[in-house]
């Protein structure tokens, strides 16, 4: 999919909460080996944070960079699988918090971990069609995992926001195109009344994650006529450490291209925030002229791939914290506090 | 305009009175006051109560009190000014007699708190402050007092221990008051061993849930002379307010409501501060007790704690204060407190204060605060003739 008019990124922001729990601490509680762990520690939202509050923080960072009048934002889309209201759009609250209401369209997107990149695609489409001037796309989650489930060792909280608009010479980067690959593949899901997701174990690998990401990325590169060497960075959805690295290598990327976007070891998997936070980390270090491949993955399943070209030095004059700073700002909590903050103790 | 006298007083004990309902408390204190005055009918009743609507789900207290006392058909007025409701009720009653509107007026202060949990009460106490921007932060009344305490200590370089002495003094007098909630003596060590309620304020520095009712009867001084040997005259009664938001006040540590009410009262009574023999002031926490003594003008701002530590507020001190235990020792049944203070000053003036009797009492002052200083009332009673 190539937009008819070029669309660029005017501002972006990532938000990671302060608290961390070490995965070795989680392993201690459940009596697991800790040499299996894919992340060293994961970010945990406080009692008074949720997907909406984190989305507001990320959005405010994006707006600080973009310096646009919030009333000119025509759409706000939030991708999340941990919406605090099953019915009441998170976008309504975020729009109000940034001063963008009421002349705006808003909706929440759900497609597991790729809700945020869908929001991005939709904003790109609306901007390219000149139906809106600016669009705000957010991917954010307070990722859920049942106590003692394997997922507990990777799930995390965090999110990222992107303000997109017409490409100009001042935009930070622009989109060359996007491709999606979607099928009905039940690898990981959460039924409507359930608090925690379920998954099909090893089925989440080859037929799910790999099939969709590889196809989306390949189709994108074919459509645009690119090879892995044409990219400087490749960012993938990170449910663990092995998958994004293996997918990257399978597609022909090198570890050097993958490393800047790999946050899982110190952040964990923030579901719909994962790939977009990886993109933020890459933008923090990217230089003008560099090209980024971004491929998210949402269980159920699908993958959205994008090609992004950097125009202006993203880190220059950045008034908001870098991802590296957000990652280094941390306070450790133990499993008991973790269970309390993540509402695993019901009271 | 007529001169006004207090001719009857009565009160219940203060405490967690499980057996007594709101109505039971009212009947007990009011009948005691009526008997004390030797009368059995009144023209109008004024009721002071702070939280019955919230904690007891009971409104329309004026009519309720008139009914349970058997005074059919009389006018009944219920007033509210947070924890100064009792003083406000007295103030209104005083005006009614002073301006010739009524001849025999009953003032009833009542509060029933122990039916509710501490959390419900904590939330209810915050109804005295702005709901949308102060209570909304989750701060408690103790939390606001804690901010004042910290600010005061930093500004004036005063030790927490010195401020905490206010509570030690309170219990000393309360231990000799048969109506008091707390009869035990406490030491500074006890205070600093008690849990922190809101940093750095300790549990034993702050009042707690209390039930109680106090009543008094007012009538023109001329009529009083016919009824009693030694009528107690109301020399002044005044009220004032201050900015509702603590943080909007020029000086958070001065309650202008108290300052203004005191100024007006001393002017009305035509007496000076050194003529005051006893003071009943508002120590819902130790820091408020200290600030109150300063705002009333008895001691310079910043020197209140020192004044207490030097022994000036004891029964035989320079300025006997909170002679029956004050809010901390006798107890603080919110809307009733203002009337308890008046009853206690009357006891002092009559020589009926028992072990806490101050010598040669001719003039007494009561001072009650609503919320964190957004309202204040000062009353002066005397036995000058």
């Amino acid at each position: 999919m190539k937009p008819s008019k070029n669309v660029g990124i005017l501002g972006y922001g990532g938000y990671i909460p302060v608290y961390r729990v070490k995965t070795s601490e989680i392993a201690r509680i459940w009596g697991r080996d800790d040499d299996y762990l894919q992340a060293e520690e994961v970010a945990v939202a406080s009692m008074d944070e949720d997907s909406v509050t984190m989305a507001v923080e990320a959005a405010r960072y994006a707006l600080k960079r973009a310096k646009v009048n919030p009333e000119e934002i025509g759409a706000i889309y939030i991708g999340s699988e941990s919406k605090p209201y099953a019915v009441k759009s998170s976008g309504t609250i975020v729009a109000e918090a940034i001063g963008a209401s009421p002349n705006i369209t808003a909706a929440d997107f759900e497609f597991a971990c790729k809700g945020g990149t869908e929001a991005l695609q939709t904003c790109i489409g609306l901007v390219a069609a000149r139906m809106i001037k600016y669009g705000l796309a957010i991917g954010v989650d307070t990722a859920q995992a049942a106590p003692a489930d394997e997922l507990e060792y990777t799930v995390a909280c965090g999110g990222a926001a992107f303000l997109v608009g017409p490409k100009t010479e001042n935009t930070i980067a622009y989109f060359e195109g996007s491709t999606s690959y979607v099928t009905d593949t039940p690898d990981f899901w959460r039924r409507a009344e359930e608090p925690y997701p379920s998954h099909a174990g090893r089925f989440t690998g080859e037929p799910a994650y790999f099939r969709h990401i590889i196809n989306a990325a390949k189709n994108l590169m074919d459509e645009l006529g690119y090879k892995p060497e044409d990219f400087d960075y490749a960012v993938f959805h990170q449910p663990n450490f092995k998958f994004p690295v293996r997918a990257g290598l399978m597609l022909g990327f090198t570890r050097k291209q993958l490393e800047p976007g790999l946050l899982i070891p110190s952040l964990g998997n923030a579901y719909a925030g994962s790939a977009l936070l990886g993109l933020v980390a890459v933008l923090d270090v990217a230089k003008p002229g560099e090209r980024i491949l971004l491929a998210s993955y949402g269980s159920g399943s699908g993958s959205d791939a994008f090609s992004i070209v950097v125009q202006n030095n993203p880190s220059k004059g950045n008034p908001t914290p870098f991802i590296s700073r957000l990652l280094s700002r941390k306070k450790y909590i133990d499993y008991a506090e973790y269970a309390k903050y993540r509402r695993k103790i019901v009271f | 305009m007529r001169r006004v006298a207090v001719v009857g007083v009565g009160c219940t004990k203060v405490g967690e009175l499980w057996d007594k309902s709101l109505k039971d408390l009212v009947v007990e204190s009011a009948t005691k006051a009526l008997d004390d005055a030797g009368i059995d009918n009144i023209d109008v009743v004024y009721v002071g109560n702070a939280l019955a609507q919230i904690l007891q789900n009971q409104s329309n207290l004026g009519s309720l009190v008139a009914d349970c006392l058997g005074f059919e058909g009389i006018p009944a007025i219920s007033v509210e000014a947070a924890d100064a409701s009792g003083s406000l009720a007295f103030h209104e009653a005083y005006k009614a007699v002073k301006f010739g509107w009524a001849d025999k007026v009953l003032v009833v202060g009542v509060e029933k708190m122990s039916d509710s949990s501490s959390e419900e009460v904590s939330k209810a106490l915050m109804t005295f402050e702005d709901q949308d921007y102060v209570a909304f932060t989750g701060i408690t009344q103790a939390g606001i007092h804690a901010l004042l305490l910290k600010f005061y200590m930093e500004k004036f370089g005063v030790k927490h221990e010195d401020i905490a002495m206010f509570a030690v003094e309170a219990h000393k007098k309360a231990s000799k008051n048969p109506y008091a909630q707390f009869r035990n003596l406490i030491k500074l060590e006890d205070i600093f061993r008690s849990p922190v309620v809101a940093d750095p304020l300790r549990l034993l520095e702050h009042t707690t849930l209390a039930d109680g009712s106090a009543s008094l009867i007012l009538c023109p001084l001329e009529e009083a002379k016919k009824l009693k040997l030694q009528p107690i005259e109301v020399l002044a009664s005044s009220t004032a307010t201050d900015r509702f938001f603590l943080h909007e006040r020029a000086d958070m540590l001065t309650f202008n409501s108290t300052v203004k009410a005191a100024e007006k009262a001393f002017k009305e009574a035509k007496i000076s501060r050194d003529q005051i023999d006893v003071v009943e002031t508002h120590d819902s926490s130790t820091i408020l007790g200290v600030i109150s003594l300063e705002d009333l003008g008895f001691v310079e701002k910043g020197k209140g704690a020192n004044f207490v530590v030097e022994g000036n507020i004891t029964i035989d001190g320079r300025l006997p204060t909170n002679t029956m235990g004050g809010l901390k020792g006798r107890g603080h049944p919110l809307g009733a407190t203002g009337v308890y203070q008046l009853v206690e000053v009357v006891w002092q003036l009559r020589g009926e204060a028992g072990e806490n009797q101050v010598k040669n009492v001719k003039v007494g002052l009561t001072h009650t605060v609503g919320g964190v200083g957004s309202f204040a009332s000062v009353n002066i009673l005397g036995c000058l003739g």
Partner: protein
Amino acid sequence: MTIASAPRYWREIKYRYRLIGSRCLKCGKIYFPHRHICLVCGHRKLEDYKLSEKGVVEVFTVIRRNYPLGYEKNAPYIVGLIRLEDGVKVLSQIVDCHPEEIKPGMLVELTFRKVKEDGKKGIIEYGYKFKPIFR
């Protein structure tokens, strides 16, 4: 448990989300929270005024007991008086730090957090809190 009032919450949304107070059109005095009549000059026309989002902590306490119903889950929490860059003071919770880490004069900035929830079925009330400035 009382059911939180949705309309009452809704009326304060823009003020609480974006820290909007009032400014007197006659004497320029700024207030938070918003008000209709100027306390200084009595003027009746005040406009919406967006307050600064940064300030310093003047004094704070930690609420440790008797939490008002609905606030107990965040216990214990810090509440402080913050003097914003434009001189206006605001009472607010301070988050993302331990009490030992706060010193009077510490720089803080606005953040958006949950203030309370009306159980599992009622509305979530969001609003302003402050956190240590972070760059």
